[in-house]
């Protein structure tokens, strides 16, 4: 009888210890995974973000009737200042956009007016594209505004990818949740799905033509698709990009709009 009691006691202790060990292991593993995920997200930021940059890009919008390509040049400093000038087509040439501390102004030579875009208008499409003003304005680092965890691993376009799930930790954000397929070797997202807080899929982005530019990987082509509207999506192609350039401060002033 004593033997049975002792056995029971030992068994209970063994189970308790095993459970504790498993819990510790699990917690440590989750913590390590989260750490890995944070590291990956920081590496993505290192690839995509910069102190400042000068970009020349084209945006091809696939409409139901015709396609349009808009070429623009942008000067960006950190995540607070950005200035864009549209170069072509002729109807858009000379139109300029200025972002300063979360505020956005547009100037057009045809009306010779500077108009501030604010509120719900920021969620509107830019020139019929699949991108909103909010999308174009938000240059914040992903690691600053999202909590992240690894959801799994997969293969995409013959490349090994880690699937990250990002959940916003700030309130002023367009997409509460994101799912990101990150190239394991190059730490660059190859595909992104952006969701609303309700869980509705709002946008999808596919990154193509990943190139090595100044010791970083950068996608030359991003195909955006607004999932709430018909159409074939919008192609955003980076024609040229120069990181960490000297940008004169007067560029980021309202005077430079005119």
């Amino acid at each position, binding site marked *: 009888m004593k033997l049975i009691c002792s056995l029971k006691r030992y068994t209970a202790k063994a189970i308790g210890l095993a459970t504790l060990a498993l819990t510790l292991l699990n917690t440590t593993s989750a913590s390590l995974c989260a750490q890995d995920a944070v590291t990956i997200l920081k590496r993505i930021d290192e690839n995509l973000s910069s102190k400042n940059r000068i970009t020349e890009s084209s945006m091809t*919008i696939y*409409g*139901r*009737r*015709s396609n*349009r390509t*808009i070429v623009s040049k942008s000067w960006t400093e950190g995540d607070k200042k950005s200035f864009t000038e549209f170069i072509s087509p002729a*109807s*858009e040439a000379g*139109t300029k956009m200025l972002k300063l501390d979360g505020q956005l102004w*547009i100037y*057009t030579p*045809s*009306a*010779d*007016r*500077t*108009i*501030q875009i*604010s509120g719900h*208008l920021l969620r509107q*499409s830019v*020139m*019929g*594209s699949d991108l909103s003003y909010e999308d174009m304005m938000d240059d914040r680092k992903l690691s600053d505004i999202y909590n992240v965890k690894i959801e799994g691993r997969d293969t995409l376009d013959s490349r090994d990818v880690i699937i990250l799930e990002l959940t916003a930790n700030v309130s002023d954000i367009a997409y509460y949740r994101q799912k990101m397929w990150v190239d394991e070797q190059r730490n660059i997202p190859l595909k992104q799905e952006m969701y609303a807080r309700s869980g509705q899929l709002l946008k999808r982005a596919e990154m193509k033509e990943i190139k090595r530019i100044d010791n970083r990987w950068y996608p030359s082509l991003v195909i955006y698709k607004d999932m709430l509207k018909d159409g074939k999506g919008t192609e955003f192609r980076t024609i040229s990009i120069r990181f960490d350039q000297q940008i004169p401060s007067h560029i980021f002033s309202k005077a430079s709009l005119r």
Partner: protein
Amino acid sequence: MKRFLLKGIINDKGRSLLPIIVVATGTMLTVLLYSWLTGVMGESIRVNANFNTGELKVMTLAYSKDSDQFPNDLAILDASLLINDLKEFEPTVDWVKRVRFGALADFPDSLGETRGQAPVIGWAIDIFSKESLESQRFNLESSIVNGEMPKRAGEVLISNELATKFNVQPGESFTLFGSTMEGGFAFYNLKVSGTLLFGASGLDRGAIVMDIEDAQRAFGMEDACGEILGFLPDKYLNMDNAERIKVRFNNLYSQQQSTDEFAPVMITLRDQAGMAEMVDYTDAVSSIMVFIFVSAMAIVLWNGGLLGALRRYSEFGIRLAMGESKGHIYRSLLTEALIIGAIGSLIGTIIGFFIVLYINVHGVDMSSMMQNSTMVMPSVVRTAITPTTYYIGFIPGIFSMVLGNALAGLGIYKRQTARLFNELEV
């Protein structure tokens, strides 16, 4: 026999006066209420047709699927050609180009910086052509509370509420910011020529009415338009004719519609959101009116008939005693009811018609009651005079009189000859 009964009705006022007054009153009310309700509903439908739906509307197939969002990127191209085709196809209809749009009105300060912004809903119509009836359809001149009608390109009318909110006076400029037909930035400077008060909050919150050529320039829609509206020549909505035209047009373009999402497609007012219910309701008004008054008046006249029959109890007794058959007495009673009903209905219709005519000409100003209305409703309501106005009163007038007397007269068949002689004290 009928002549005999008519003489009886005319000479025996106790038999006919009260029923005629009751029938005439009921008939007058029927005519009045029918004309009022059809007038109010008809005016609402007409105003909606003028502002939004037309009696017929032509769009591209793709536009028609999202027409409530005014997708001008799917607008009709070469609209003038299509208008010419439509004029040949159905010359009696007035075909007009329209551009509907949603945009942002940006009011500048003295330095040209944004002073205030508001979303606006716009109507672009043909304001300047001499032969255009569009300004009348929108009742623009009467709706102006400050300023004047646009006289040249670049001048627009904005809602008075919008003007008050941003302290805008006629003569001041603002910028319309939206999307061109191709999806590009649309910035267009406009000058306020006057401010409008339509009397419907849905419109008065942020309406802009501008000339179609200005809108075409602003939104890069040269010779394009979102919608072509058709207005039939009839004074009152003629849905049957509109339906026939629609079917003919769509048959003509059916092959193109099956392969090309930009093929023109025609719909009627009924096919547009909420309008079918509104039209059906208006059509049902006469039936509802007839039913209510037949029911109410049948009860009143039944009571009157019973009183009359009681008063004429001795008369029927004598007639029965003289050998007149019960059926003959009953039929003569019904014939009398028919004559009294017809006379009462005629008098009621004539009186009702003159009241209806007065309200039709002068109208009733309901603007103070419609300040919070979200529907496009007319501020001055008028009665409608339609062919139905002339006969609608006869239906309850005659039917209820005959029904009332038929019910009251059933007592004749219950009279027993033995009791009759007893009652007559023979």
